[in-house]
């Protein structure tokens, strides 16, 4: 089957998921992002690449970091950005997703950045829009959050230089996490040899080891000797039925404390996609401690999103 993200010549038309993307595409995005990091340190933090283009931020689900960094990224590329606050727009009056997209396309949209609680929403839009329009998935249900996965691997590459020999532990609510799925695909594509997922049985998807990861239910065992610890947010809003005894109970077993972190390598980095639940999945002393690269992740997210937008717009 044709990869719906790629053009006939193998170049990126949309960014919907990291799954199935060739290694060269990921490396190209990371290398381009590195050049954009330099741009954000200059007197004028803008380049004219997307001058005259209109980027529509279409967020059907709450977001602060992702929506803001997409907006900053588009503005630094000189695009016009239109943010749609969907909770007060027509969808609450019953307009379908594709009708909304058609109407925005009639306003000359060149790019849609889409977040939706339904898995596959960005695919649906990508299959529907005109050939010159690009779609970026900014998170769809439990499925994928490709730009988060990309900024995560950018952050890992920044601090660890390369992926060979790297041990990465992904901890917590993997079941509901599109961030975890995107990161696992990115890491295995780039050749990270040891990716571990750690969590209670109820919060790990069945068959997750088929993605090329090892599974641990004991956090101490899973963290032993790893280079990177990625903590996931406990997604209470997506939980249907009782998967956990309580948040306190979860913290006891799977919260990242200085004692547990001490089992990782001494130079291990700690990441979190945000928003953090302090005292649930991560202890404040770790979140604000010397191993934490959680705020640099946010900053790198701007450059990574600039890279994705400019590569798509040029294809």
């Amino acid at each position, binding site marked *: 089957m044709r990869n719906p993200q790629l053009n006939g010549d193998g*170049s990126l038309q949309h960014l919907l998921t990291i799954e199935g993307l060739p290694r060269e595409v990921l490396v*190209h995005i990371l*290398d*381009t992002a*590195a*050049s954009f*990091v*330099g*741009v954000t340190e*200059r*007197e*004028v933090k*803008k*380049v*004219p*690449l997307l001058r005259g283009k209109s980027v529509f931020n279409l967020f059907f689900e709450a977001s602060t970091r992702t929506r803001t960094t997409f907006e900053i990224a588009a503005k630094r590329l000189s695009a016009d950005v239109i943010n749609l606050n969907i909770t007060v727009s027509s969808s609450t009056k019953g307009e379908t997703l594709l009708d909304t997209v058609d109407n925005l396309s009639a306003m000359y949209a060149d790019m849609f950045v889409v977040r939706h609680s339904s898995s596959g929403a960005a695919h649906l839009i990508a299959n529907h829009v005109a050939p010159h329009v690009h779609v970026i998935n900014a998170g769809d249900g439990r499925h994928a959050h490709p730009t988060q996965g990309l900024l995560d691997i950018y952050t890992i590459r920044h601090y660890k230089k390369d992926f060979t020999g790297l041990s990465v532990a992904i901890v917590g609510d993997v079941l509901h996490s599109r961030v975890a799925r995107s990161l696992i695909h990115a890491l295995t594509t780039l050749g990270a040899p040891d990716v571990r997922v750690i969590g209670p049985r109820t919060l790990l998807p069945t068959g997750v080891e088929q993605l090329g990861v090892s599974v641990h239910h004991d956090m101490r065992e899973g963290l032993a000797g790893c280079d990177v610890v990625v903590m996931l947010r406990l997604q209470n809003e997506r939980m249907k039925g009782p998967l956990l005894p309580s948040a306190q109970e979860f913290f006891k077993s799977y919260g990242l404390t200085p004692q547990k972190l001490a089992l990782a390598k001494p130079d291990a980095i700690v990441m979190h996609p945000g928003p953090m639940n302090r005292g649930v999945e991560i202890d404040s002393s770790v979140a604000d401690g010397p191993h934490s690269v959680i705020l640099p992740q946010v900053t790198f997210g701007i450059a990574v999103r600039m890279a994705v937008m*400019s*590569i798509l*717009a*040029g*294809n």
Partner: protein
Amino acid sequence: MDLPDAEGLCEELARKLRAGVTESTGLVGIRTGGAWLAERLHRELKVSTPMGTLDISFYRDDFDAAGLHRQVKPSQIPFDVNGRHIVVIDDVLYTGRTVRAAMNELFDYGRPGKIELAALVDRGERQLPIAAQYVGAALSVPAGKLLRLARDERGKFFLRLSDAKPAA
């Protein structure tokens, strides 16, 4: 066609530049050929200001047609451009579009006092009102050919002529 010796042209360019640059001049090479050249000239002219390099991929005027260049590298301007005398260095001056992009990028670092242009080869056929103050040699090259600076494994410069890729 016979191509001139790039090493000889480089010496000629250095000789001409010597009269125009001072300690505080900022030499800025355009990636990749211009950056190699700037590196060499920076060493030979003993300029104390560290040299800069520009990757003009984010400023190209053919982005809509050609897309983003496959290998973008960060630009590096390790000095304050405000008020400074800057010499932009490129291997081959042709349409002038690359130089236009380079000047636009420089202005995003600040307001230079004066910008001059040095090129190893000027092949004419300008499409913009741009001229070089320092030129190694003028050379007529058939349209549709790509002329570039290359380096052998010992770092020796030579010119290479190839067929230009058809526009995407």
